[in-house]
């Protein structure tokens, strides 16, 4: 039979792009311009470049221990109990991330599309839909990512084309005037728009073409960097730095600016919301899947789909807990930032270092 239990390099690339491009794209320009001003694009590039070594590290982990999946490697390298602690942190990170995403989407939908529908209904329906996809295996999620990826790219291209009518590129100037001391802080803010690549920990063991995977991941991150920069530059050109700092969702407002009645292109925000739901879905489904997988490893079951539905009440409750968007960012957002640091940065590096030394030791 066909090797359809392996992910191809194209699918890996698509998976990386569609999982990472999530929430960040809507409010990233605003957040980074608040700290760094016109030079926000520098932090975007730098933060992205910081990710690349971590991805190389992840690839190397799987090179050290071929034919093993992530849990086996972690167990072997770190020992049972340390790994368990990591996994628990990871699990809470995943659950908070899913709740954050659902709530964020629910709020946006309520604001733009469906004003009277209760937020609870919106959140439940979204979690249910995502759970249908998360119950399958990573190959299927990879295929779905491959389908959503051109939609994301196409949307960005559409943004470019339609805003060409009204942007003023001189708004990007002046360059290099901002306070460079703020760079670390702005890189930190931007860094967390790039999280999501930990899905690679689950997908690399299942992919074919081992040498090219590394390339595919890098290309994927490169594409994400490019997308973020384009969005930032477009919103900056459209609004100028002061207005940009004022807007909560610059990307969305960018769409609202497009008004060419002569060409019948108006009111594109419905289209944006549709693409938006797809984008959030493509970010959330792999994470939900990995949460299920983590649970299935912790409880030693074979199938992860048992855990998908029971997680739903937890996610639902957690997503409704913050009172409003600001609290959402304060509580969940911060938690995701810090635990994300542990999960996506510390854990791979630790596993790699320990594993590297262990294999060296085993060889001698």
């Amino acid at each position, binding site marked *: *039979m066909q090797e359809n239990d392996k992910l191809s390099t194209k699918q890996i690339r698509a998976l990386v792009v569609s999982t990472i491009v999530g929430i960040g794209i809507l409010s990233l320009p605003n957040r980074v311009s608040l700290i760094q001003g016109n030079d926000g694009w520098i932090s975007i590039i730098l933060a992205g470049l910081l990710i690349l070594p971590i991805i190389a590290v992840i690839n190397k982990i799987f090179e050290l221990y071929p034919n093993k999946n992530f849990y086996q490697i972690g167990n072997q390298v770190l020992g049972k109990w340390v790994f368990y602690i990591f996994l628990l942190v990871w699990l809470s990170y995943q659950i908070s991330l899913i709740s954050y995403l659902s709530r964020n989407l629910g709020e946006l939908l309520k604001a733009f599309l469906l004003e009277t529908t209760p937020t609870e209904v919106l959140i439940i329906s979204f979690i249910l839909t995502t759970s249908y996809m998360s119950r399958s295996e990573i190959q*299927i999620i990879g*295929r779905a990512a491959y389908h959503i990826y051109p939609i994301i790219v196409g949307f960005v291209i559409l943004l470019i084309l339609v805003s060409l009518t009204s942007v003023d590129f001189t708004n990007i100037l002046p360059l290099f005037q901002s306070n460079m001391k703020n760079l670390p802080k702005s890189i930190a803010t931007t860094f967390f728009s790039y999280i999501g690549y930990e899905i690679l920990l689950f997908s690399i063991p299942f992919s074919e073409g081992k040498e090219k995977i590394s390339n595919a991941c890098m290309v994927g991150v490169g594409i994400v960097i490019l997308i973020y920069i384009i969005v930032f530059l477009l919103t900056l050109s459209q609004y100028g730095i002061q207005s940009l700092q004022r807007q909560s969702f610059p990307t969305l407002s960018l769409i609202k600016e497009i008004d060419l*009645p002569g060409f019948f292109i108006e009111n594109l925000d419905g289209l944006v919301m549709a693409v938006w739901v797809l984008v959030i879905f493509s970010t959330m489904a792999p994470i939900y899947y990995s949460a299920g997988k983590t649970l299935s490893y912790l409880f030693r079951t074979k199938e992860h789909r048992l855990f998908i539905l029971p997680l739903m009440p937890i996610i639902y409750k957690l997503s409704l807990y913050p009172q409003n968007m600001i609290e959402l960012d304060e509580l969940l957002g911060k938690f995701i930032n810090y635990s994300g640091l542990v999960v996506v940065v510390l854990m791979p590096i630790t596993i790699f270092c320990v594993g590297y030394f262990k294999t060296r030791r085993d060889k001698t």
Partner: protein
Amino acid sequence: MQKILLKSLEKNEQVLKHMFTDCDDVVFRKIEVGDIFKVKMTFIFIDGLVSKEYIAEHAIYSLFIEEEIKSFSLNGFKTSLIDIISKETLSTVDIKEEYRIENIVDAILSGDTVILIENIDKGLVFDTKGWPARGVSEPQTETVIRGPRDGFTESVKVNMTLVRRRIKDVNLKIKMKKVGRRSKTSVAIMYIDDIVDKSLVQEVNERLNSIDIDAVLDSSILENLIEDNYLSAFPQIENTERPDSVAAALYEGRIAIIVDNSPFVLIVPATIGTLLQSSEDYYTRWQEAQAVRLLRLLAVGLSLLSPALYISIISYHPGLLPTKLTYYLGASRINVPFPAVVETFLMEVTIELIRESGTRISGPIGTTVGIVGGLIIGQAAVEAGIVSPILIIIVAITTISSFAIPSYEMAAGLRVWRFILIFLAAIFGLYGVILGVIILGTHLIKLNSFGVPYTSPYSGLGVGSGELKDTLIKAPIQQLKERPGFTNPRNKIRMRRSWKDARK
């Protein structure tokens, strides 16, 4: 219960007569051959299933004129009687010896003739099939403008022949099976041995062998029994009435299943790409085929989404359209009593009724009913102010798009989902439509057809060689040098050069 033949003709006849009690179309023809020593023989066949001239001329006549039997008593026989009859006398094209009653009964029921001979405990069986059948004519469901016009009929043999004529390769293998306890339908599995993936052949064989059902009346019943996911609204096995489609599929490394009594041949595996292809794409010029392929994708989208989008815009988000359009839509809906959902639902049901009644009545009345029904009902409804004219347009577009899809079952599956999307749009507006599309997409991605993912070639599996070149777009034939990869064929190259390459 006697299982094998005995030497006594009387007893054998009785057993068979008993089995065929009340089957008045079974004929027992007794003859006696020989001048001095008469050899008694009985021909058993079913009148209507056999070609009676054939039996008369090649079996009975040849026995009557046989010298050796006539002079049976004079000398001894060099060879046994049964060998004389089967090898030297009967001028039939094939001959078999049977001694099991079960096989003899099967043979009689299939249209063969059985000869029982006195004092011999074996029966001779030969093929005399000849029943009234439809001739080879143009397929009614898949017409093309250019291309061959022969279509399959209800006979397995004819169908096999039509395919074999197009593949004169010794690697074309045909395996016959019988499926169905009582119907014992002949099923032929065809594949090209050095292209196809062996595990696929094995899978097909396994699934067919594991069926235990009374009757297989049509290939669609077989399809439902062997497909991967019977709960899905979408077909996972392709069917066609055209031999050239079958031959093309075999060349791609797929397997064809011909079912007796059905002019629809099954092709396995099927993907979205193949279900949206029509053989005409290959016979017309590639530019037009290209445009038509894209048009088909548009048709799929329209037939699925139009009513749902209409509802979500009218009832939920009037802000999504350009202002002028919004006002006109609003103006067109003044005094319409129903909300958009109810309107849409009514019109959709009406269209389905019209379509269904058009299918029941064939011929000229059928088409007229369709046109008349559609036009008049639509017009009258608008005049009465029950529905808005925009909705009529939407419903008409939806129906026409669904007819533009080559595979009827696929269109049917989309129709089911259209209603689901209407329902979701009624509750959640545009968000509901998106959720529905996501769920539908997930379902399609998960679906497999005999181990091949349903959404390959769009899924980026493997190295994307011939995939998109033949599905999303239609590359000229000079560029389709390799077989598509989703069937995992063993032999990838199908075209080595065109005349321009030859000149280089």
